């Protein structure tokens, strides 16, 4: 089922959107949630008002609506690739790491990130923090999770950021069809 967020979900999501720097952007969007409120995991998506109306009017049940921006799981929001792109484009002061060209290529194959490949990180980045992985054009190429905090993210010879999602998934998934 595709539905509006409940009051409790809205509180959780607004808090998450604030931390990802897209609170203001999201306030102007038509947001829906897929799945029963009691489900452990629910997709969060944005669409248009006419598309939402169409979905409500049709008796058929859609497989997908709009652009999935993330997942709400155990009160925590994790951005999807679509959400990461929204954050990179419209977010302010969001957690990120910026990688060099070689790492960009490796990330697109799902590889984790070595410290020496990291060129820049957002301020106050903690350990086990979800981050948007940016390339040198400041485009989102994935979502990662830090292994270390602060300057340790630049530590040479070690994986310092795990790659959770990457744009290469679009290709790999098609290849597996």
């Amino acid at each position: 089922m595709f539905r509006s967020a409940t009051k409790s979900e809205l509180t959780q999501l607004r808090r998450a959107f604030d931390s990802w720097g897209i609170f203001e952007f999201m306030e102007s969007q038509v947001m829906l949630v897929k799945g029963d409120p009691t489900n452990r995991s629910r997709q969060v998506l944005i669409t248009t008002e006419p598309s939402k109306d169409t979905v409500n009017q049709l008796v058929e049940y859609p497989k997908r609506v709009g652009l999935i921006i993330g997942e709400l799981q155990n009160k925590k929001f994790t951005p999807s690739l679509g959400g990461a792109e929204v954050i990179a484009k419209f977010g302010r002061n969001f957690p990120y790491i910026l990688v060099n060209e070689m790492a960009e290529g490796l990330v697109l194959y799902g590889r984790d990130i070595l410290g020496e490949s990291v060129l820049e990180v957002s301020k106050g980045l903690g350990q086990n923090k979800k981050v948007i992985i940016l390339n040198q054009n400041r485009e989102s190429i994935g979502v990662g999770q830090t292994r270390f905090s602060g300057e340790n993210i630049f530590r040479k010879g070690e994986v310092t950021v795990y790659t959770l999602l990457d744009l290469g998934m679009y290709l790999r998934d098609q290849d597996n069809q």
Partner: protein
Amino acid sequence: MRELHDKEKVSSLKTLTFTPTQRSHYLATKFGYDEWVLNRFIHFVPSAESLIEKMLEPVPKYIRTNTLKITSKELVARLVPKGFQLSATILADVFEVNASNARVSIGATIEYLLGYYYIQDITSCMAVEALDAQLSQRVLDMTSAPGGKTTLIAQKMHNTGSIVAVEASPRRIRPLSFNLARCGVMNTSIYQMDAMNCSNMNVRFDRILLDAPCSGEGMIWNDVSRRSGRNPDDIAKYSQVQKKLFATALQILKPGGILVYSTCSFAPEENELVVDSMLDRFNLKVEPLPFGNSGLTGFGEMVFRDNLELTARFYPHIHNSIGFYIARLRKTD
């Protein structure tokens, strides 16, 4: 429902075939085609031998800028330094690609993964051009996977309004879904259903794109296995399915709305004959298209309405594209 029109009766009996000639035998043997296929080409394709020879050359590759994310100028500035040569086409945001100097394939660049462009034949883009989808309209794409035309419709609508993307095959839903996500499409909902059941939908549409399932004759260039091993009955069967889908679409098209019918087949039985039979049954106006060769007004013993000239045919040797057909019809009641 009225009685079947005479022309439909003819087509429902068999696909039109012609008496073999020395020329058809020679060409079929030389180029590896079933003779009945080639003999039909001789009867309606302008300069059939040029068509056959053209389809021995490499297939051209086209990309379409996803203007939801980037401008064509910016895209060109990123792809050219990577060794891709991009040539302009008659469509503003569509380029023919020469990748002979590129280090990676056009389907494996970061720009592709970022959804900055879509790889699709120029004729597919023309079908969407013909649809003329406007901002905030409600649009139905009856056979949407893998999403090339759907994402272009969303682009034309600037991600406003509502697109209903229908796809029957569960296996093809995932690539469709990925392509919509990759291209940043927000205004589309995907329904897994047989397009024949679209008439049950309790909404009406301003625009409908029916890129109908077809024999795929126009894809021979991409897939040489299609040169032989097919049966004339296949075309007749597809023609019947196409008529049913067409009639289904018209039931849920708003008065004044536009239906674009397209196939990747050369066969008149899948193109002009289908449209002609719909003109018998429904109040429709055939609207002109600014591209392609004129549609046929006859084929063998079949005679079609004169205004089918307003529909468009695309041939590899003339348009440097796959074989394609587009008709644009406005519902007048």
